[in-house]
């Protein structure tokens, strides 16, 4: 009950941020060089056709009026029509959103599965060879540009070993999954590095804490101390970092989708920007903002599950 109220409160807090984001992106798009009517007509500009399209799209109305229309349509799920695809923006985004979310999800799973054991190992084996190797690996991960890592993986696993598809999305779910492995690894690469370093430092800090000594003096087994005390407490700061990295992955997906030819909203956004398809740009940006806000709410929730000291509904500093 309490957590339900908290969830509701957090969702209500999202609304003003989302509204401002919608206003900002709407205004920004009005400053674009050339309007969508020009983009549709291309080079052959017939003044009458131009005026007709402007009238039809409501571009002659004042900016507040245009916004009111846009916003009421948006509330009904209508984001306008793409000038390039000549299709509803919501339909375009709907199918592509699944791709982007799956990509971010699989990259998150890779990140957790790889960084958790390695970060823990490095922390426990501090200053031993295993720690040194893992830290060098993390440093390389941190320094390598994602698009370069993507191309390397593509060359090794796609072109040379022919293990995984080089590009495209496939038609069935098993094919989608295979198509997501390389881009998922690419996207996870730098997050793995960041998280390994973070978990390592947290494990070292927590190991020195008094309550771990206390647990030992109570005669708890090593396993109980590692999982119940060290790991749990070491993970609390990591959760926040992971959520920041997931939001970072949404940024990364824009580039990764382009390298691997995945039909996601990142790739759609870049196409729309190049083609001045601004209803689509607006739609993509708004969907990205919604995903970020949802990730934030989920993080708060996980945080409270891991750390009982944090009271749900309490005011944050």
């Amino acid at each position, binding site marked *: 009950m309490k957590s339900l109220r908290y969830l509701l409160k957090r969702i209500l807090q999202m609304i003003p941020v989302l509204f401002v984001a919608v206003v900002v*992106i709407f205004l920004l798009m009005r400053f674009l060089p050339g309007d969508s009517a020009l983009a549709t007509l291309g080079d052959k500009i017939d003044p009458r056709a131009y005026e007709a399209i402007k009238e039809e799209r409501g571009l002659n109305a004042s900016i507040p009026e245009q916004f009111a229309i846009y916003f009421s349509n948006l509330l009904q799920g209508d984001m306008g029509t793409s000038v390039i695809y000549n299709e509803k923006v919501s339909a375009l985004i709907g199918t592509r959103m699944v791709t982007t979310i799956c990509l971010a999800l699989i990259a998150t799973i890779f990140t957790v599965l790889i960084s958790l054991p390695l970060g823990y190992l490095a922390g426990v084996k501090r200053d031993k060879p295993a720690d040194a190797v893992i830290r060098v690996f993390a440093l390389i991960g941190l320094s390598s540009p994602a698009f370069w890592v993507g191309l390397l993986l593509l060359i090794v696993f796609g072109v040379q070993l022919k293990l995984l598809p080089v590009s495209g999305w496939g038609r069935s779910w098993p094919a989608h999954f295979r198509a997501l492995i390389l881009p998922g690894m690419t996207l996870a690469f730098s997050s793995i590095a960041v998280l390994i370093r973070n978990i390592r430092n947290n494990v070292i800090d927590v190991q020195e804490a008094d309550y771990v000594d206390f647990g030992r003096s109570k005669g708890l087994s090593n396993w109980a101390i590692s999982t119940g005390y060290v790991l749990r407490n070491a993970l609390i700061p990591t959760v926040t970092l992971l959520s920041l990295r997931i939001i970072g992955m949404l*940024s990364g997906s824009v580039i990764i989708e382009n390298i691997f030819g995945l039909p996601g909203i990142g790739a759609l956004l870049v196409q729309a920007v190049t083609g001045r398809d601004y209803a689509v740009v607006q739609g993509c940006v708004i969907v990205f903002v919604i995903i970020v806000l949802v990730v934030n709410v989920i993080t708060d929730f996980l945080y409270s599950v891991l750390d009982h000291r944090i009271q749900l509904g309490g005011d944050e500093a």
Partner: protein
Amino acid sequence: MSQSDDKGFKADATPTPAGEAAAELAATAEEASQPEKRLSPFRRSPSLLVGTIIVAFFVLMALFPQLFTSGDPYALDGSQMLLPPSADHLMGTDNFGYDIWTRVVYATSLDLIIGVASVSLPFVVGVLLGLLAGYYGGKLDSIIMRVLDCFVAFPFMVLAIAIVAILGSGVRNLIIAMWVVSWPEYTRLVRAEVLVAKQSEYVQAAKTLGYSDLRIMFRHILPNVISSSVVYAASDVVMCIMTGAGMSFLGLGVPQPTPEWGAIISGGKSFITTAPWISILPGLMMAVVGLGLSLVGDGLNDLLRTKD
């Protein structure tokens, strides 16, 4: 900085003795911000030494590209297309017949400038806003933080792309886009530390002495809260170089045929089966630059952390 609540000090907060104690504390705070001079920073942190050597090497390359190559980055040679790396062409040639090594060398200055320029203004503005928000709190704090919430609601790449879409591509607009997206992290870091520092004895002491807000903020608090932002800035330069190169990779950053790392790597995309060196080798260079800057960041972190 220790943050223990000194009850004894608060209890005898009568003007004269407390005033003396306050003056002493305020003095220690100003002293604490002085760098230690006992051991050279490079001896104390090998990461900083290695990182600085790598970064210095690339700064040299950026300033004097002629030392590293005799070629012209814009010279096309139609008879020398898609050649693998050799003594004549260290990184091979691309589909236009450009010598990749020459272009990579000449791109160094532009990429480093993008990295440093993208970080410098957000660093100053972000730190100032964090200082103001943390120190004054109240309305000013909530305004700054609500604005910040709106900025961080966008994935940075998405916002940067939207801005480039409006301003058009090119180096200048790319840097402006980075300015818009990178300040919030500094504000968050500094604000959080100011909130802690505000409760500390040396700030209470400085207040007791009746120092002005400006003096307390800049001479007492700032030196003690800036270190995390400095460490972050080192990694931010890496991130901005990579984001800038990423934008060029997408065709939204530095226009062709200006030599730029991301654009060069992007140019090799269509040739990864036939001429993989076009993308691999310049990317390796970028990774080395990133490694150097990351090591500098780690080194700074070691130095500033051991002070506590």
